[in-house]
């Protein structure tokens, strides 16, 4: 589904990604872990098409197409979803209105029929039950006045409605207490399917207690320096990031 090869990217003239390669197949859950400043969030933003992130070398192919050539909205319609580390508050734009506009824009671009308000409401009711999100959040402005946990749950709720094929979760666990973390994890688990892949970017191991990944990668200094199964996460928990990758010939620079 997703094939990243030798990706180099710069932000404000500073090289952040320095030859990152990663392959993700449908149905898989990949965890990307790493210390602060390793380039984890940059990876999420480059994949979703944020302006200001300049790809200087390498390629990203998504279902065989050049993902980097697409506008952010086209990537979304193609099934790429980024759950933001810091979801943006948008006063004056109703949450439900926004989500319906987003879903219909995606459907329109894919050549599918747009949902009318009744059909959309029905879909939202189904998803809201599953995500255990309060009805009241739907009527508020997008993320405006939401608590940290509500914002993250709202991201997962949007993901449930938009049904992406590749979901990138950028530190969705950060700032959550244990109950909120469990709710978010449950939401993610319910969306796992053989057709859908997840890229979970996280600093801590604790999310992986609830959403068990198929693969764990360590990102350090702009590259994947070690890959393994979930046991790698446990090893990181025990030893921290300092020892990782040092033993490998392609190891990250200090």
């Amino acid at each position, binding site marked *: 589904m997703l094939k990243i090869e030798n990706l180099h990217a710069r932000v404000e003239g500073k090289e952040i990604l320095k030859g990152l390669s990663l392959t993700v197949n449908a149905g898989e859950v990949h965890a990307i872990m790493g210390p602060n400043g390793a380039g984890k969030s940059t990876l999420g933003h480059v994949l*979703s*098409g*944020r*302006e200001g992130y300049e790809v200087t070398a390498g390629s990203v192919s998504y279902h065989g197409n050049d993902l980097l050539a697409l*506008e*952010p*909205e086209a*990537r*979304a*319609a193609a099934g790429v*979803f*980024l759950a*933001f580390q810091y*979801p*943006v508050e*948008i*006063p*004056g*734009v109703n949450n439900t209105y*926004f*989500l319906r*506009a*987003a*879903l219909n*824009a*995606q459907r329109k*671009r894919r050549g599918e029929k747009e949902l009318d308000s009744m059909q959309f409401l029905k879909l939202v009711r189904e998803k809201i039950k599953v995500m255990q999100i309060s009805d009241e959040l739907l009527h508020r*402005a997008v993320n405006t006045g939401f608590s940290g946990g509500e914002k993250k749950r709202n991201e997962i709720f*949007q993901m449930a409605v*938009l049904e992406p094929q590749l979901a990138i979760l950028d530190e969705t666990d950060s700032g959550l207490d244990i109950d909120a973390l469990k709710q978010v994890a449950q939401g993610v688990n319910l969306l796992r399917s053989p057709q859908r892949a997840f890229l979970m970017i996280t600093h801590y191991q604790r999310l992986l207690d609830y959403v068990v990944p198929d693969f764990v990668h360590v990102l350090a200094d702009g590259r994947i320096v070690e890959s393994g199964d979930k046991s790698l996460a446990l090893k990181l928990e025990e030893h921290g990031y300092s020892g990782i990758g040092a033993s490998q010939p392609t190891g990250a620079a200090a």
Partner: protein
Amino acid sequence: MSQPATLPLVSSLLDAPLPSSGMTWLDTARRENREAFAAGGLPDTRVEAWKYTALRALGQRRFGHVDDVAQRPAVDAPTLALPGVDGPRLVFVNGVFCADLSVLDRLPEGLTLQPLSQALRGDPEPLRFALSRHYREVGDAFARINAAYATDGVVLRVAAHAKIVAPVQLVFVGAAAETDLAWHVRNVIALGEGAELSLVEQYMAAGEQAQLATLVSDIELGEGARLQHVVLQNAAIGSSLIRRSSVRLQARAHATVHALELGGALVRHDLQADLVGDASRLDTRGIFMPHGRQHIDTQLAIRHQALHTVSSSNWRGVANDRARGVFRGAIVVAPGADGSDASLSNKNLLLSPAAEIDTKPELEIHADEVKAAHGATVGQLDERSLFYLRSRGIPQADARALLTAAFCRAVLDDLPNEVLRDHLSAMLIAQLPNT
């Protein structure tokens, strides 16, 4: 001083025959105002109040007079309808009252509503004070020409304690004629003690033209009167529209203004409010949204002159393309207006690098225990918000429109007429680029 009078605009306006009323006081006032206009000409940008609105291009144009046009241009009555507005209606086409387009039967009790031309033929005495005014400031050129030449307009009175619930609609249509006209409208509106009025003032175009219109309105609120005033300005995109509204509020009177400024090539509105009675209150809300090469200038001058008076002003500007917005919010709390509360906010959005908005909040306080807050900002759409919307699949143009509409919406939120509010929102969105 003779040089300004040589401007094509000035000479073409002065070419029009001075109307004769048969009343000495009115004919004298008209003549004197005409002379003042001829002597003073147009203000240039060295005059503080016209600093950001240059009249150079307008000054080079010539306009015909309404009497030069043989036939009244056709206006389609259904185009005048506004959702949520179903009260009496007074319609003027190129400044001339049109009985056939107006709805004046079954006026509610306590409401007097008639065209100025009629009122002057009937009982002109109550209008004497308003119509014999002299305008002495150098920036008053358009008020002078209006005082000299306006023969029609709205005379509206609400009797004490009468409550006019269904909105009264005043429509000013600029209609394409054989030549571009200059026309002038004079409105006199008075609410008696404890009276209530819902008023909608509407500017619209029938066909493309590049006319010049001047409007002067006096609005007086008696003690405890309440006014809900909505202004929907959607004049022809090539036209020039110069308005001055003077609002006077007696004790405990409360006026609320919601203004939407969309149309016109050169638009200027001076809103002068005097809070002369204790505990009177004025709330103004407005959106100006110039695009293309439009220039829209709004000037608020609010004077707190009595105890515990309140004013709150919340205006948003959105400029696109090469358009220009100007906003001045001047608040004076006069000596003795102790315990007053004045707040003003003007936030602006530039949607294009060539667009410009000049905003100037001014606050002068000469009284004690005054609460005052004012602020103005000019910025661009938030890049993070845009990306957030796009990352969910919303195309860039739609995302920009969505954020722009959201930026404006807060200003309309407290408009009680929900149907009209929705209509204004829709008009606003229709004006946004690429939607």
